[in-house]
C-alpha cells in the first residue's frame, strides 16, 4: 500500500481521537497556563481573571536574577559533566558485542525511569551520616568519624549528573552506533592509536551531535525540580523548584505560570537551536 493523500473526510477518521485529545488536554491547558500568567493573584483561592504584567515585572529583581543565573550555571555544569563522561563511554559501548550493549541499555533505562523522588532519597541516604559512604571511609581507616555530605552544592550536582547521565548516553547512542566504522579503520590503518583516532577522527566527525546533546541535556537538567530541594540548601534552588514552590506552597499560580512561560521560551529557543544544528549535520 503506497502512501496516499487523504481523499475523503472518512480518510481522516484515525486522526479524530488523537487530535481531539491532544488539543483538549495539551493545547488548551498550555494556553490556560499562558492566560493565568497574566491573571491577578487571589490569596483566598487560585486567581482572578485580569490582565496585569506584574508577574513578569517581578523577574526584574536581583533575587530572581540570582535564581535564573544559578539555574543556568548548574544546568551547563551538569550538561558538560554528562557529555564528558557519557561520550567516550557510549563510543566504547557501541564497539562491544550486542549482548553487552543490550545489558547496559536495560540497566540505563531502569535508572533513567526512576522517579526523581527515589533518586533524591537514594543519594540523600548515600550522603547521610548514618548510612553514607563516609562510613566506608571510616571502616578502612581514612576518616575518624562519619560525616553528612549534604546539603551541599556537590550533592546537588552529583544527584543531577546521576539523573542525566543515562539520558545523555541514550541520546548519544543512535549517532555513535551508526557511525561509519570505515572512518576509524582508515585512521588506524594510517597509524593512529585508538585514543588518538577517537579524539582526532570520531569526536570531530560528531561535533554537531555533541553540541546538540549538550543542549538536550541542558534542557533536561533545567527541568530537575526535586533534587536541589532534597540535596541542597535554599540557595541551591533552581527555577523549576521555585515554580513548584510558588504554585503549591505559596499558592501564587499567576507568578508560577509567568516563570513557567519564561522557562518554556528558554527551552524552546534551545530545542530550536538543536534542530538547526541537526539539520546542518544532515546536510553535510
Amino acid at each position: 500500500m503506497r502512501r496516499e493523500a487523504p481523499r475523503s473526510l472518512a480518510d481522516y477518521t484515525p486522526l479524530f481521537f488523537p487530535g481531539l485529545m491532544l488539543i483538549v488536554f495539551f493545547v488548551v491547558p498550555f494556553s490556560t497556563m499562558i492566560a493565568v500568567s497574566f491573571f491577578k493573584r487571589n490569596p483566598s483561592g487560585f486567581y482572578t481573571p485580569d490582565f496585569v504584567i506584574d508577574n513578569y515585572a517581578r523577574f526584574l529583581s536581583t533575587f530572581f536574577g540570582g535564581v535564573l543565573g544559578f539555574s543556568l550555571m548548574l544546568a551547563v555544569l551538569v550538561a558538560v559533566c554528562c557529555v564528558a563522561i557519557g561520550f567516550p563511554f557510549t563510543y566504547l559501548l557501541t564497539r562491544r558485542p550486542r549482548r553487552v550493549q543490550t545489558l547496559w541499555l536495560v540497566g540505563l533505562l531502569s535508572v533513567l525511569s526512576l522517579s526523581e523522588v527515589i533518586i533524591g532519597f537514594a543519594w540523600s541516604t548515600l550522603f547521610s551520616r548514618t548510612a553514607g559512604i563516609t562510613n566506608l571511609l571510616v571502616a578502612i581507616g581514612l576518616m575518624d568519624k562519619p560525616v553528612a555530605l549534604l546539603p551541599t552544592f556537590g550533592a546537588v550536582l552529583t544527584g543531577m549528573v546521576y539523573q542525566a547521565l543515562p539520558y545523555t548516553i541514550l541520546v548519544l547512542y543512535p549517532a555513535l552506533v551508526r557511525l561509519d566504522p570505515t572512518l576509524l579503520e582508515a585512521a588506524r590503518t594510517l597509524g593512529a592509536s585508538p585514543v588518538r583516532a577517537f579524539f582526532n577522527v570520531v569526536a570531530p566527525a560528531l561535533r554537531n551531535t555533541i553540541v546538540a546533546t549538550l543542549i538536550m541535556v541542558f534542557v533536561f537538567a533545567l527541568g530537575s525540580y526535586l533534587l536541589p530541594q532534597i540535596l541542597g540548601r535554599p540557595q541551591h534552588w533552581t527555577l523549576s523548584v521555585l515554580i513548584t514552590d510558588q504554585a503549591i506552597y505559596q499558592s501564587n499560580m499567576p507568578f508560577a505560570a509567568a516563570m513557567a512561560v519564561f522557562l518554556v521560551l528558554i527551552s524552546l529557543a534551545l530545542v530550536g537551536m538543536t534542530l538547526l544544528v541537526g539539520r546542518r549535520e544532515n546536510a553535510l
Partner: protein
Amino acid sequence: MIETWLRRLYFGLVALFLAAPLIVVAGVSVNSRQELTFPPVGFSLAWYAQIFTDPEWRLALIHSVTLAVCSAAIAVAIALPLAWFLWRRIAPWANIFQVLGLAPFILPPVITALGFLSFWATAGLFGQFFTAIISHAIFFVTLPLVTLSLGFASIDRSLVEAAATMGADDRTVLKTVVLPLILPYLVSGYAFAFVLSLNEYIVAYMTIGFTTETLPIKIFNALRYGYTPTMAAVSVFFVAVAALVFGSIARFGDIRRLLGAMSSDGN
C-alpha cells in the same frame, strides 16, 4: 592490553556510580530495626511486607498501579491511530500532531504539570483521580508514539501491497498484516509509558497530590517526617519493576533497535 584494562576500569566506574545509591538503598531496606544504617544491622524483609500490609502504603501502591495501567492504555490509544495515519497518508500538516505528541516530553516536566494544574483548576475538576490518568496519558504519549512510528517504518510496504493486490481492503490489511507486525512495538510503547507513569511525581502531585497519594508522592511526603526502611524497600521495588519490564523487552524484542541502533527508514 593496557587499553582493555583501562576500558574495563572505565566501565566499572560508570557501573559503580550508577549502582552505588541503589546498593545502599537495598542495604538499608533490610535493616532489622526501624532505622537507616549501612551496612545494615541484622536482616529483615519486614519492610517489603509492609508495602502490602500497611494500609497507607498498600493504598498508594493501588493508586500508582491503577494510574499507570490506565494512563498507558490511553497513551497507546492516542498514539496508535496517529502513527498509523502518519504512515498511511501524505498529509504534511498532520505532522503538527506529531509535534504536539512529542512536546510534553521534551519540555521541562514542571511546565506540563503546571499547565494541567491550571487547566483542571479552571475546569473545576481539580483533585479528581481521572484527571491524573488523562494528564499522564498526554504526558507519556510520546513514548508509544516514538516506538509505534519506528514499528510502522520497519514494515515492508510490499507485504501490504501484496495483501491489497489480493483483494484485502484497508481494514483487513490493518487487522491481518499491519497489527501483527507492529505488536512488539505496541507492547514496548505501553511498557515504557507504564514504567514512567509508575515513577512519575510532579504531574501526579500537581493534579491529585492534595487528595490522593501515589507511591512517589507518598515517598516524598514521608521524606519530611524522617526516613524509614519502608521507603528504601519501595525504591528497590521500583528498580526491580523497571529492570523486569525493560529486561523482558530486551528478551522478546530488539531494544537496540527501539533506542535507534538502526535508522528509522531501515537503511
